[in-house]
Each structure stands twice: as C-alpha cells, then as structure tokens.
C-alpha cells in the first residue's frame, strides 16, 4: 500500500512538473536566453510584418491575437547615435523583405514564421527609413517606418 501511494505521489508530481515546468522553461527562454544571446549594450528590436494593413509592429503577433486585434503600427523607432542594433524580423503571414536603403542594409527575405536577424550600428544621427523591399501584398506601400537617431554630433548626420 505504501508503494502504491508512493507511485501515486510521483505521478501527481510528474503531472504538476509538466503543467508548471513547460511554461517556465519557455518563459525562461524568452526572457533569459534571448537577452543573453547578444553582447551587452546591444539594442534588440523584434519587429513583425503584417500584410493586412501593411504594418510593421513591435507587438507580439501570435496565435491568440492574430485575428482578434490589429497590431500597433510602428512609424518611428527612436535610437541614439552609436547604438548597436539587432533587428529580429518576423513575418506573421507571407514573404516580406526588409531593407534600410540609406545604410545599404538588405534587402533580406523575411519568410512567414521565420525569425531573421540583421545588425547595424547607428553611427550617425538622422532619419533612417526602413521598408518592405518587395511587393508582398496590396498594402505593401504602407510597410515602412523610420529610425530616428538622436545625435551627439550634428556634423555626422545622414
């Protein structure tokens, strides 16, 4: 009887481990693993392209909110001169493409469901336009935004 209770307790513990452990592991990956992947001081920006409305967004576009809510369009992203930036680019629906023409950065394909990384350093002040580089959908022209890089030295601006 004691052995049976021990088995029962182990079973319940195993179920609780699954129910609590899995979300904890996933949360740890998002919070700790991703953050520690890059060198200290790096500015990590995760941005998702959504064809419906032609939107680049900083919102998480995931299963539960994909249909329920329209993501917030990101028109401007503030940076400081000298920021080292890692863009983590995603697409929530179809093949997009990303480029920052002034930096000759990209275009890189951003396939649906993939995460594509792109790095740059904002070494001068000014305005950097980013956009989807290929005609992805009827609202493709709206898939654009700007980095506003606040400068330390006005002479070194774009």
């Amino acid at each position: 009887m004691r052995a049976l209770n021990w088995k029962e307790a182990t079973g319940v513990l195993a179920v609780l481990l699954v129910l609590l452990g899995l979300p904890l592991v996933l949360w740890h990956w998002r919070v700790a693993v991703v953050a520690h992947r890059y060198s200290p001081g790096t500015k990590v920006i995760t941005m998702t392209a959504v064809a419906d409305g032609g939107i680049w967004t900083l919102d998480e576009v995931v299963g539960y909110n994909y249909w329920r809510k329209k993501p917030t369009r990101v028109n401007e992203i503030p940076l400081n001169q000298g920021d080292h930036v890692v863009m983590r680019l995603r697409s929530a629906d179809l093949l997009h493409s990303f480029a920052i023409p002034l930096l000759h950065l990209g275009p890189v394909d951003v396939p649906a469901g993939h995460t594509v990384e792109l790095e740059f350093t904002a070494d001068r002040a000014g305005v950097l336009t980013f956009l989807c580089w290929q005609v992805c959908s009827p609202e493709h022209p709206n898939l654009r935004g700007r980095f506003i890089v606040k400068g330390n030295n006005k002479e070194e601006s774009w």
Partner: protein
Amino acid sequence: MATASQTTPIDVPVEALEKTWRFDVFAQWPWLKRLVRMRSFQFLVILPNLFMFYLFLIAGLFGTPVGNRNIIIVFVWILWWFVLITVLVPLGSRSWCTVCPLPFFGDWLQRRAVVKVRPGKSPGTANSFFGLHKRWPKALSNIWLQNFGFLFLATFSALLVTRPIVSAVVFGVMFLVATGLALVYRLRTFCNYVCPISGFLSLYAMTSTVELRSVDKDVCLTCKTKSCIRGSEKGWACPWNVYMGKLDRNNYCGLCFECVKSCPNDNISLFLRPFSNSDLILRGYDEVWKACIMLVLALTYSVMLLGPWGRFKDWANVSEAHDWGGFGMFAAGQALLALVIFPGLYYLSIRLAKWYARADAVPTKELFLKYAYALVPMGLLAWIAFSVPLVMVNGSYIISVISDPLGWGMNLFGTAEFPWTPFWPDRVPLIQVPILLAGFYFAQRGLQRIARQLFPDPLQLRRSLVPPTVLLLGVTLVFLKLFIG
C-alpha cells in the same frame, strides 16, 4: 431463382473464411502482459502525450500564427494524422486511445487518482468514483454526435489544419468537455459518445490487425464478478463500459487494459489477426453513416487540399478569401454529399442488389447494414492514400519545427532553417494507386464474406454483389481520377 448447379462455386470456401486465425500475443510474450498489468502503465504512456499536447496548446495560443512553422499544425495535422491513419489504426486498433491525453483530467477527477485503484460501490461498479456518476441519455448512446461533430470540424478543416489558434481552441474545448462530462456522467462518456476522433477510430479499428478479447468466452460466461466491466481492487471498471464476454468487435474497446488487470481468471489477452477480416458487422445506422461520412470527407479533402481547383480551396478557406457565399455552398454541398447523396447512392445499390438477386427473404435493412462494411476498408485505405502526399510533400516541416516549435526564433537542434523539401512528390501517385486498389480489394473481399453468410445460393450471392461493387468501383475511379488526373 438460380440454383447452385447453374453457377461456378465461389473460389474461397466459406469455412476457411469464417475461421480466421488469431495469435495470442500475451501468451507468446508474457513480459508484455506484465507491462500492461502495471498499475502505472497507462499513466506512463499518457504522460509524454500530455506534455506534447500542452506544448501544442501553448504553441497554438502564443506561437507564430503561421501554420507550417507552428508545432501544433505540423505535428498534429501532418505527423500525428499520418501515423494515426496509416499505422496506429490499421496495425494497433484504438491504441491511440491508450495514450490519448484528452480524457486524462476527467479520469483523474473521477478516480481521484492517476495510478491507483479505489475499490468501492459507485453504481454499477466495484470502484469508488467521484462526480455525479449519471447515466448518459439512452437516445444519445450511439455515434451520431460524433458523426455530426466530425462533419462540423471537417467543414472548417481548411482553418483547422492551417491556423494554430483554431486547432488550439478546438483541442482546448475538447479537453474541457471531456473533463466536464467526466464529472457529470459515469466512465468515459466523452470518448464513447462525443469525441469526433473516437468516432472514426471506432469505425476503422474494425479492420485492425490486433484485438483485445477474452481467451475463452465460456470462462467469461461463468464468471461471477464480471470485473472487466465492474472493476475490482486491481483495476478500474471498464471506462468504455464493455463486457469482455460479449466483446466481438474492436469498435468500442479503447485498449486501456484495465480488464487485463482486473480479470480474476486471467482470461483476457491481446491477439494478432489478419487485416480487415474479423469484425465485419456494422450494428446501426449511425455506424453506416459514419462510414459514408468518412468516405465522402476523404473525397472532399482530396479535392480541396490536393486538387488543382483554386475555387474550391477559396470556398473552404473562408478566413483568407472571405467568400462566405462560396463557403456556404462548400459546407452545404459537403454535408449534402456526406449525409444524403452518398448514403442515398449506397441505399440505391442495396435496393438494386436485392432486386437483382431476387433476395426477398433478406430484409433491406439487414442488407443495408451488413454490406456497409465494404465502406470501412475502402474508406480507411482512401484516407491513407490521401494522407501519403501530406507527409511526403510537407514532412520536411517536421524537421524545421522540431527546432523551433513555436516559431519564436529558437534553434534547439540546429534544423530551424531546414528548407521545405518535398520527398518524391512525382512518385506520390505510384503509392496512392496501389493503396486505393487495395481498399477496393478489401472492400470486395469483405462483401463476399458477408454475402456468403446471407445467400447460400451462389447466383443470388453474386448478383447481390454487383450493384455495391459498381458503387465501390465508381468511388475508386473517382479517387483515381483525383490522384492521377
């Protein structure tokens, strides 16, 4: 009326067909019996699936909305579906039900235990159950709910198999319903009467090469405890409410092996048997309609998912195309075909069979129910033929998604960017055609075996087979046209 002298005898003797072999697995490999008799057996096989199922739900809610990059879509609708329909059902009967996590919490609440047994006196059993323990209404004690549930889900299949959130919601609701019903009704009501997956498993498990049966039925008939259905201090009352002394089909045995644990006479074993050769009887209109629905859905899925007709895809894929009129036509057309037109054609073939064979002595209902078995192997093999290209063309998604199950940018095993690589797509029809023809063969063979029991007169027998055979041939040709153009 024809006589035997006017005809050539059927090539296979009746005696040979009526006695099919079976191989006692537990007698041959006793360690397997010891394994399933462990109290923790079912818990141990469900636990990994519970983990996966939980991951799927999380992925559906919080993972990427892109289906081919989300584990819930790729693992459930490509990998699981393929393994279920091509391996588990034909070779393992309802072995999926052994490991299914959906009723886990319901069982846990009912039993207040995940491993141990509680002896007691809950009504109709020798165990102690928690909950209201009510009887499921008699009027719903069939698989009609499962028929309509599956058809309903199939209507939205273009969403279900491509949108992670839709899959997550459907499985989440099934999970909640299974748990809720377990608190109100006795045993596994959800599995028996509600679960849409269970409905088609029950039908196609008839063809399977394994069965759980009593070794000697006479022992069951003299058994006073009936522990298989009532439970004991060693095992729970059969969650499927099956009495092993009368079990002669796989349909409603969920292979939980509780009866193996509880049988005081050690009289229950797992047997191997030939494919599609043993459980040849459909016992109600609900089962016949299930066979019709499944066959029609294999057809409409093939049109919608594999065919070249963009318009049908747009009709089904209402969330993208927003063509509600088209979706309405698709939904109504599919329901009409599955519930009225195809069963009507089958009924017509039975009426013709009866007329052509001059079989006035055999009631139409009996012929309608008995010949319907032919739709079972035909449907199963059609589903397998349909599922082959799914995994051959889209199987490579499994490799990428295993490294990044939620589409968050993980790369657990270094395969996250593995490209979509169809595997021999040009050879898919070469695999589909023999599978379909095998379906026709097994259907035809099943018909002949049943006909032998009904018609002693060989000419009557052969004539009675002509109309249903023409129908099956027509179905096979339609599938062939779809698969090879």
